[in-house]
């Protein structure tokens, strides 16, 4: 378990230790963003523009505020949904800036975690507010044990309920390229979809169907994953040019405990039909994600 570094409560206010921005920081920022506006790192250019020194980029302050907030609340389980900043007054390098945060609201849901609205103020040494902003953060539910959220996954994928149909044209050029890449001799290249090509008609592999991406944000460390098994059966050859409709149904969600890790399996079945509505094939695919057991991580 990765514990949050602070208790998230509406009304909480804190101020981070002051941060002094250097010209070197802004040169790095310029390189990463390709913003080479001179008054951000050249003192003479800044003075010529009426500033007392190189000006700290507004988006740098926004990024710093996000980093400070996520570090404070434990960013392994948090992600930003939206953030908005207003730059009210220029800050110059070499001046200490204070980042002040207030949790304006917390909306909790047992299944989906919490949504935070956090207001940010950046203050100069005279306590003048130079920047204001709001960051909306989603926190995934914390896992207090090794238990994987099987019920949540089953609900997310609507176990037993068909999704789709999704329609895909089987392109001749794709089949031909696939056959060549898989080593088929030139004189045997044809217009029949190879059995192993089924993945190209899989809405999940194509990311047209994404139901359980919250698994990316579980607070249990993920240590691996990939295809566990694939099984495909065709009623008849599928030919280049055909329009195939695919319906995906998740049939099983289960776990297996290994030494030091826990494996989460999601099994789905795809049914392929042609333009007349006739079933032309089925595929059964298992995907596995491996998570580190908390007890193993503690060793």
């Amino acid at each position, binding site marked *: 378990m990765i514990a949050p570094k602070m208790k998230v409560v509406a009304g909480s206010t804190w101020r981070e230790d002051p941060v002094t921005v250097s010209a070197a*920081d802004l040169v790095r*920022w310029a390189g990463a963003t390709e913003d080479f506006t001179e008054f951000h790192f050249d003192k003479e250019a800044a003075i010529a523009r009426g500033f007392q020194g190189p000006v700290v*980029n507004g988006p740098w302050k926004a990024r*710093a505020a996000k*980093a400070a907030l996520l570090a404070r609340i434990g960013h392994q389980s948090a992600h930003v949904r939206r953030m*908005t900043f207003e*730059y009210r007054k220029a800050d110059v390098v070499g001046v200490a800036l204070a980042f002040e945060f207030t949790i304006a609201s917390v909306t909790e849901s047992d299944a989906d975690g919490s949504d935070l609205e956090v207001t940010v103020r950046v203050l100069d040494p005279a306590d003048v507010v130079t920047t204001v902003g709001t960051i909306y953060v989603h926190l995934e539910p914390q896992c207090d044990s090794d238990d994987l959220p099987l019920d949540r996954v089953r609900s997310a994928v609507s176990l037993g309920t068909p999704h789709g149909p999704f329609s895909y044209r089987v392109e001749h050029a794709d089949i031909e390229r696939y056959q060549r890449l898989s080593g088929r001799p030139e004189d045997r290249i044809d217009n029949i979809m190879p059995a192993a090509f089924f993945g190209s008609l899989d809405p999940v592999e194509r990311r047209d169907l994404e139901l359980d991406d919250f698994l990316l944000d579980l607070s249990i460390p993920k240590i691996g994953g990939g295809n566990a098994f694939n099984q495909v059966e065709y009623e008849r050859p599928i030919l280049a040019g055909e329009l195939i409709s695919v319906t995906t149904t998740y049939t099983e969600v289960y776990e297996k405990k290994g030494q030091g890790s826990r494996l989460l399996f999601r099994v789905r079945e795809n049914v392929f039909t042609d333009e007349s509505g006739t079933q032309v094939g089925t595929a059964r695919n298992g995907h596995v994600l491996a998570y580190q057991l908390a007890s193993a991580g503690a060793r």
Partner: protein
Amino acid sequence: MRDVVSASWVFTEDNNALKWCGMLGATVTRTLSGNQVAKLDSSLGSRFSQKTSSQSPRWGMEDLCPDPLVFAIGTGLPRLRLLETQIDGGSEWENLCSIGAGPATLVSRIAAVHQKESSGGRRMMRTTYEVTGYSARGEKLGVARGFSLDVGGEGGVAA
């Protein structure tokens, strides 16, 4: 032109400003990587966290388009000069889905021009430069906005 004076932002009715709304910049393809995000984070030093967001499975528009105003101007959109002084007035990032490593297409445009009068009686105009990100599959990833703020008295419109 009818001069709209308001304590809050309202759409401008200045035709010289409005004529720029909807203008598109050049479409840009950017490939986000952990290395690129690490470069952005390196400008923060180690002040806030020992772990950088380059290790996060979820990146956002703030990683893909860290400075929307600079990015939009870089795609060929004009930096409007509506009043005497132009400053970077703010930024906004909205994430609609997670962004992974790989190419994304960014489309920028001048989305709106608003105006208001400050409590001190200064006239202000705000141009919204909007950058929309799409995945290689055409999925909308999110939106970043940069706000160019014009402050001062009357001025002509010049790119």
